[in-house]
């Protein structure tokens, strides 16, 4: 009997296709919105996690300045030095390697082409810390690092801007007034989870950068790779102790430097993404509710429109419960169809969005299942009232209805 009822419901739904489409539009849009939001949100979370993993979860950054992140931090504190890097590597077993990193933005010029790009002073160890291979040419040689010779390794975006698809190695680019020989090309990385293009970069040896570009021997940041064998938390503690000692910070005093863990940064970013996803999904869920009210509305109209049909059914021996069940099943089947269409539409939208945003397409089966059940529940809740109205009709009145 229940299959019969479902079959009848499907028949009734297709007998009036246009009305059915209008009825479920709200559900379709609501479900599609929720699914698309959650899937895109999940995708960008996954992207952040993947980025951090690519960067290495054991990567730490040491920066001068008080411990807190963010604004209101204007205390002047001593810069970092090359000797700090040597000390970190030599004295701490929890530090595998470390590299300086100073950054600025400059115009890079090659022939008639020019592009504004990030220029960083560092050394070969940086590529080790962040695990970034050179795909054409080579990395810095110790002699180049020590002599202060102007050589550089460029990112894929800079190559495209200045050289197109040709081999840049051996060419000379001008950075400010410095003629710089290109010795290598970095592997393309794409956009970071912060949205910046990581390939829009020129790396120089730190010494050359200090002398020719900034004219100061300060180090503004140290990248540290923690040893594989220890936890990053342990490495953070070790680095903090050593740096306090080196910078002669007394026992009750606050740090005048800051050790950042990429994992913290990642979880902060994922946190923001999750909150945003949650908020948008809540808005979308409200639209599902509105969709449910839409179903009720049109089911009520449908019940009125089909008064005569209900009268006929009652006259040929349908019980009130059978009529109730029929309309209820119709509402449920209708909203489940809406749910399925919405899920497919939502996944489609998410796939397109993921493609455009260059993030992974991460459909979540649990959310899909919940959306489906929710749409069925909407059918039950908002289909009940119209169905009850149908079941309570007086057969004589119903038969007389025009």
């Amino acid at each position, binding site marked *: 009997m229940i299959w019969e009822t479902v079959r009848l419901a499907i028949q009734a739904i297709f007998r009036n296709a246009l009305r059915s489409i209008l009825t479920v539009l709200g559900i379709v849009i609501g479900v599609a919105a929720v699914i698309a939001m959650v899937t895109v949100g999940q995708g960008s979370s996954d992207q952040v996690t993947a980025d951090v993993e690519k960067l290495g979860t054991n990567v730490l950054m040491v920066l001068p300045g008080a411990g807190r992140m963010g604004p209101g931090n204007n205390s002047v504190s001593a810069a970092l030095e090359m000797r700090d890097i040597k000390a970190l590597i030599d004295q701490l077993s929890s530090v595998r390697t470390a590299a300086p990193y100073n950054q600025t933005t400059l115009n890079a010029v090659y022939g008639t082409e020019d592009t504004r790009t990030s220029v960083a002073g560092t050394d070969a160890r940086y590529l080790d810390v962040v695990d970034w291979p050179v795909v054409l040419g080579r990395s810095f040689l110790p002699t180049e690092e020590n002599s202060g010779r102007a050589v550089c390794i460029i990112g894929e975006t800079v190559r495209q801007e200045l050289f197109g698809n040709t081999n840049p190695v051996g060419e000379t680019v001008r950075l400010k007034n410095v003629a710089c020989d290109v010795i290598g090309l970095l592997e393309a990385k794409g956009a970071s989870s912060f949205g910046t293009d990581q390939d829009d970069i020129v790396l120089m040896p730190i010494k050359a950068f200090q002398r020719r570009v900034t004219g100061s021997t300060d180090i503004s940041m140290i990248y540290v790779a923690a040893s594989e064998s220890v936890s990053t938390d342990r490495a953070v503690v070790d680095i903090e102790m050593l740096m306090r000692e080196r910078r002669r910070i007394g026992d009750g005093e606050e740090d005048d430097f800051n050790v950042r863990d990429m994992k913290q940064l990642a979880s902060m970013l994922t946190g923001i993404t999750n909150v945003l996803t949650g908020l948008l999904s809540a808005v979308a869920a409200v639209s599902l509710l509105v969709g449910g009210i839409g179903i009720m509305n049109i089911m009520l109209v449908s019940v009125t429109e089909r008064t005569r049909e209900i009268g006929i059914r009652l006259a040929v021996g349908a*019980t009130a419960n059978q009529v109730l069940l029929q309309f209820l099943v119709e509402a449920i089947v209708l909203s489940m169809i809406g749910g399925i269409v919405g899920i497919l539409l939502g996944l489609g939208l998410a796939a397109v969005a993921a493609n455009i945003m260059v993030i992974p397409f991460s459909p979540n089966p649990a959310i899909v299942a919940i959306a489906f059940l929710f749409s069925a529940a909407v059918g039950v809740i908002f289909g009940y009232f119209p169905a009850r109205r149908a079941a309570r009709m007086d057969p004589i009145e119903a038969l007389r209805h025009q």
Partner: protein
Amino acid sequence: MADDTPVIDLRDVTKIYGHGEAEVRAMDGVNLTVAPGEFVALMGPSGSGKSTAMNMIGCLDSPTSGDYLFNGVHVGALDQTQRALLRRNYLGFVFQGFNLLARTSALDNVELPLIYKGLPAAERREQALDALDKVGLKGREHHDPSELSGGQQQRVAIARALVGDPQLILADEPTGNLDTKRSLEIMELLDKLNADEKITIVMVTHEEDMAAFAHRVIWMVDGRVERSGSHDEVFNHERRGS
């Protein structure tokens, strides 16, 4: 059931619509019995309470006062669901306006009562095809009502009334929307069902020619049964009276 138990037994049935000034006595102390196998025509001027009586007999309505016994069972004591079951198992309806489901094939229309009986699909189909055959609509099973003539639509409605193997068919002005030729065909069909299948028939009609098919004519005026007897008795009296 004993043979002498009437199918229909209305005892002093009154039906009042509205209150006070607007009160209408659609049925006013109607006493009426119909024996199994009878073919009865219910006649009378417009507003005399024929349709009200049919609804009462069809267990679609309940009396304001008085009793209705169907096969000796007090219908007043049945709840809504039991009445639906009674309609399903013992009654068939034929209406003036055919009352077929639109955009639904003749076959599906005829199957409708069997769906509520819970018959499996194959059996439903077989019985519905059989009923359509009986009313002479073989080959029209898959036509929509909109693709059928009035006479054919009424045949579908009769097939639907017939398919559940009812004891009683109630037809309220079954030929009211048809021309004389089609009307006579429908009457012949009803007459045949009454004769061959032993189905009791109560029919409302305004036309003497149609009433002539019935064994007995009941003449209602103002909610009361004024006369009951053979076609000739009732109409000779009417003619003398007018």
